[in-house]
């Protein structure tokens, strides 16, 4: 005999001690699927038969069962379960996790049970126990269905137990094998004419009966229609809509989930006591004019509708009022109720209608959810969900979404068929599609990136980033990218420098990158510029606004004018652009840092070293032997002058925006596209077209790393850049993105590094020790942050929900909290 059970369920074995439950379970299920009370007694009490431990044992068993059901794993409870109270707890657990409870009863004869127990020395509890179990079981048998078990299988003899096999059934809502393509249609509400218009618009061919009534529609190609419910009520021709949709469903041309109006119509047709409101009266009147067998057919059809469908391997979910991810593919009264009615806050609005809980704002699921129920003026994406009810019956539109194309198709209502109770606008506070949740960023997180696989953020990294992001960063809607950290080139072995271009060229050459571009390093602050046709933002590498208002807007408008002047809006077919840039001078942002640290050290050094030299000179003149110390101190004075000159190069007076320069060097993204597959020369040529006083160019040189002459030219170029204290250069693969290769390495100048490693770093004894620096962590961090940044850009370009973009941006900031040698 085959015992049919749903492919996701909680199997409750019921039988006396010795009835063969454990043997049965082992035969038909995986060891990990079986939760045995004996085993859990052993876990908590070191003795599988210690009945005094049963309470604790079941606590743990129930907890584990809950975790398994949460994860969607069929679970088998191996315990006697002969008492209704024990079973009630298990049914409650199944319901709480929205899976169906199933009972399999082993009604094994008493003598068999006793004989089995007699063979086991640990079961010496006597025949009365088995007898008591069997009495309880027999009393329970006919109530199991009523208790809530969706299926009850009773095996009445040993041969039935031996012959039983388990057969799995798909749940009614499981249409994962249906892969589409689909045309998903919103709430129709009796608007037959508009439905016919829409089907024609979608390329369906209407089939009419002798009386000219549409009874089916043949889809184009292999497409199928899918309705999100509320076919009926309010509109002029509910019977006509039902006739057409029933025909489509019966011929396999359409799927349909149940709406709350179908649910109520069924109850009304069955003569139940329902309030005839919200357009039900119209349906009942129209159906009254139809023949009895049509009414019966309509009633059967509506009654048989499933509350939600999971389609296309789990990537698409249809439910009339939407469905959170934890309910996808689950079955319980709660799931059905959510799918039909949605979630309400318990409050009512000024029109007396229930305030609906904006579940889609919190939706973070992987599947696309299409639904209706709440009329809105336009179908809009909210976190990969879309409400397709555009209020056709209220004079709005009837809307369909082509899946997987994500293309919206609408037809206008012929007229206002039914006056809405409240106007067809969404209240201000409900229109917050991009609400970010704490759970989007906090805790241990793993982000799947296209270019470097999984990147993990540890909880403590996220915790420190949360404060920075919440208190200092700009609005996440404008914070679409944070730049990655950049590693320096491998430490030079030359005696007089710490960094040298030859190592950068060699690194790329050995990684198989022939052409690299050297870009002048502006000693400024990294800036990300988001410019929209209206609005935008300029922020730092930790997401803070660069300038207080109105300066920020002023600078942004200069960038916008330049973009307009260069004709980039049309050329790139976009209304926003995201640039990676350097903002100068250094002191425009880092005033505090410069004063507190760099200038102060210069002042102290130049305050103390001249008197020290003077005192030593005086002592030497007296004949005291201080020669070596005097020499060292004089050298340190020269270093201090070099240091002061180095940092002062990067500071110049600014007033408002006067003196501020911006050097964009890469176009990161625009509507629908990213550009990390374009060579850097493309980017530099593009940004060179941005003209205006506020822009400054980035000098650059392309080097073939396999060509000695070009490498030598690259070294010379760097030497010229840095001789006067210039910061140095960044070397990047010319082609831009090269998988698993550093996106760029910096090669900093000898004088410049005084402000990083201290004035005296060039003293040979100091240099020798400073060469011992570990670059591995920084380089690994750079690659991970780069991958996260690109992931953010690609998600933005694809139009993904804000939380998907924000988790990447947040992760970059979180990784930056990792302690890394700040001088690298």
């Amino acid at each position, binding site marked *: 005999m085959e015992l049919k059970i749903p492919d996701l369920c909680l199997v409750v074995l019921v039988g006396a001690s010795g009835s063969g439950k454990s043997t049965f379970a082992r035969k038909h299920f995986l060891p990990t699927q079986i939760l045995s009370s004996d085993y859990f007694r052993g876990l908590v009490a070191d003795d599988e038969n210690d009945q005094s431990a049963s309470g604790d044992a079941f606590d743990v068993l129930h907890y584990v069962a809950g975790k398994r059901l949460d994860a969607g794993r069929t679970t088998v409870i191996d315990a006697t379960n002969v008492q209704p109270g024990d079973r009630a707890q298990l049914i409650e657990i199944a319901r709480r996790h929205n899976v169906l409870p199933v009972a399999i009863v082993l009604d094994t004869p008493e003598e068999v049970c006793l004989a089995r127990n007699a063979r086991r020395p640990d079961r010496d509890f006597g025949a009365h126990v088995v007898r008591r179990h069997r009495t309880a079981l027999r009393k329970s048998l006919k109530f199991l269905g009523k208790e809530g078990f969706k299926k009850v299988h009773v095996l009445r003899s040993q041969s039935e137990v031996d012959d039983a096999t388990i057969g799995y059934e798909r749940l009614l809502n499981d249409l994962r094998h249906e892969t589409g393509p689909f045309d998903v249609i919103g709430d129709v509400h009796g608007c037959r004419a508009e439905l016919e218009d829409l089907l024609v618009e979608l390329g369906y061919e209407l089939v009419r009966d002798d009386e000219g009534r549409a009874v089916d529609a043949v889809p184009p190609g292999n497409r199928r229609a899918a309705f999100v419910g509320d076919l009926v009520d309010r509109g002029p021709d509910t019977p006509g809509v039902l006739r057409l949709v029933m025909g489509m469903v019966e011929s396999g041309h359409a799927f349909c989930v149940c709406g709350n109006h179908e649910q109520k119509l069924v109850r009304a047709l069955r003569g139940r006591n329902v309030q005839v409101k919200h357009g039900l009266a119209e349906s009942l009147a129209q159906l009254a004019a139809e023949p009895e067998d049509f009414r019966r057919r309509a009633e059967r059809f509506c009654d048989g509708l499933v509350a939600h469908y999971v389609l296309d391997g789990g990537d698409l979910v249809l439910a009339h009022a939407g469905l959170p991810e934890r309910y996808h593919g689950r079955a319980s009264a709660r799931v059905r109720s959510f799918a039909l009615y949605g979630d309400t806050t318990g409050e009512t609005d000024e029109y007396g209608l229930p305030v609906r809980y904006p579940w889609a704002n919190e939706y973070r699921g992987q599947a696309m959810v299409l639904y209706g129920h709440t009329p809105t003026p336009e179908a809009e994406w909210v976190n990969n969900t879309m409400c397709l009810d555009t209020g056709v019956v209220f004079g709005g539109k009837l809307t369909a979404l082509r899946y997987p194309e994500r293309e919206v198709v609408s037809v206008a209502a012929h007229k206002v068929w039914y006056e809405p109770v409240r106007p067809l606008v969404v209240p201000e506070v409900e229109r917050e599609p991009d609400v970010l949740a704490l759970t989007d960023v906090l805790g241990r997180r793993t982000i799947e990136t296209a270019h470097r696989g999984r990147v993990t953020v540890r909880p403590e990294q996220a915790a420190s980033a949360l404060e920075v992001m919440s208190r200092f960063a700009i609005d996440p809607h404008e914070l679409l990218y944070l730049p990655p950290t950049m590693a320096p080139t491998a430490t030079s072995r030359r005696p007089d420098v710490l960094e040298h271009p030859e190592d950068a060229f060699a690194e790329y050459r050995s990684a198989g990158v022939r052409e690299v571009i050297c870009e002048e390093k502006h000693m400024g602050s990294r800036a990300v510029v988001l410019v929209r046709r209206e609005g935008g933002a300029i922020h730092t590498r930790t997401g803070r606004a660069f300038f207080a208002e109105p300066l920020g807007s002023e600078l942004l408008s200069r960038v916008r004018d330049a973009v307009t002047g260069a004709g980039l809006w049309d050329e790139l077919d976009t209304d926003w652009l995201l640039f990676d840039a350097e903002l100068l001078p250094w002191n425009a942002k880092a005033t505090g840092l410069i004063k507190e640290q760099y200038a102060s050290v210069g002042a102290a*050094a130049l305050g103390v070293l001249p008197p020290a030299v003077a005192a030593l000179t005086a002592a030497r003149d007296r004949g005291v032997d201080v020669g070596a110390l005097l020499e060292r101190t004089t050298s340190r004075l020269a270093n201090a002058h070099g240091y002061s000159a180095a940092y002062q190069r990067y500071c110049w007076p600014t007033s408002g925006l006067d003196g501020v320069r911006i050097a964009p060097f890469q176009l990161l993204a625009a509507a629908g596209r990213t550009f990390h597959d374009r060579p850097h020369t493309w980017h530099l040529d593009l940004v060179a077209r941005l003209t205006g006083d506020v822009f400054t160019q980035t000098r650059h040189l392309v080097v073939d790393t396999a060509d000695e002459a070009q490498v030598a030219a690259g070294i010379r170029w760097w030497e010229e850049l840095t001789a006067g204290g210039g910061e140095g250069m960044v070397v990047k693969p010319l082609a831009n993105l090269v998988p698993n290769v550093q996106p760029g390495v910096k090669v900093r100048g000898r004088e410049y590094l005084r402000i990083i490693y201290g004035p005296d770093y060039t003293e040979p004894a100091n240099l020798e020790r400073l060469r011992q620096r570990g670059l591995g962590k920084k380089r690994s961090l750079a690659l991970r942050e780069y991958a996260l940044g690109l992931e953010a850009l690609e998600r933005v370009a694809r139009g993904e929900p804000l939380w998907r973009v924000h988790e990447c941006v947040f992760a970059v900031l979180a990784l930056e909290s990792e302690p890394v040698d700040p001088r690298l």
Partner: protein
Amino acid sequence: MLLTLTTTHQPATDLGHLLHKHPDRAQSFSTSSGTAHVFYPRADHEECTVALLLEVDPVALVRGPGSTLTQYVNDRPYAAGSLLTVALGSVFRTAMNGRSESRAELADTPIPLKINLPALPHRLVERLFTPLGWDVETRPIPLDEHEESRYADVTLTGTVKLSDALKHLYVLLPVLDGSKHYWVAADEVDKLLRAGEGWLAQHPDRELITTRYLARKRPLVVSALARLAEVDEVEPEELDNALTEPKISLAVQRRDALVKQLKEARASKVLDLGCGGGALLKALLEQPEFTEIQGVDVSAQALQVAERKLRLDRMSDRQRERLTLRQSSLTYADPALQGYDAAVLMEVVEHLDPDRLPALENCVFGVARPRTVLVTTPNVEYNVLFETLPEGQMRHSDHRFEWTRAEFRAWADGVAGRRGYTVRYLPIGPEDAERGAPTQLAVFTVGDTN
């Protein structure tokens, strides 16, 4: 780092005897903070100058074990501070103790001294040295063309016993500097008391000196102050009285007002959003009617402070069960804030940029949505009545804005309208007829509050 010390006591070369360092030799000593060089730029009958030059290894300073400095670009190798103190204490230890076998009497005699420190953080120098009998001359070192740096070329002149002069420097150089280069340990208290013997207990700024010398480690400070009191046979309260506040502070009035409102709202489950170090949580825990209290802050560090201040580790199980501390953010939706009767945002909104307030509104009034929300914020109109607050300056450096009463009402009325709450306003603190009270409170309620 350089220090020179000059005397015109004659014969001036006796300085060499007092310091146990021969005037015609240059000597080098390896100390824990670097190599200390002692030499005499001048040594004759009229005048004798000793120089202490400390050469610090900047790489070892950062890389050495137990180092707390993270930047190579650092004033430590140049400015007079704790490193110089260590060298001073090691090189001139005997002289500092006032012992001199060859010139015992001179060691016990005040002599004319001039001490020069070419780069010294000078903000407190006059305040600290003048009471000890020094004339202080400072020439600030410029930072750039426009500003002065925090260092000055400082010359101290006075007639002082050499050992006292060295003790003054030993204690006050790190105090002026404010940041010690090594972790302050308990034996620092002993060092301070030894070097401060005979002068520190009478110094008008002894608390400041103690606090800064011990790098603001509160338990150590208290212990040092108590022991100072013991040494000088005075009551510790007398020394500590500057720390007690004479009248009920605004912060206390704010907490009292909030507790009163929460009781009136009959709230038992209460959220403290932005709880910081837990000052309000403490007040809430004292009221048994608040049965479930959740303190939330965006800063994990603040929560640790709260945990310590509320002594969570020794709280009884019953008390402990009433309180939850959690990291969360008011700009992210957090469903764990649902199900509470009331939420308090005490002096929180002004720490957010105005364009993030809609996110806060959604988090508090949309997602958490308790029946009662209490919001306090400064009333900027009142600021002119704070004597110590410069005009136009906000009350806290992190305040992103401070609202007038009208501005606060405009925001709160908007929130209430959008979210279906009603709102009323109350003053907290002494009310000025024209400018209102220093703190303004908005009480938001939704639904049936009876």
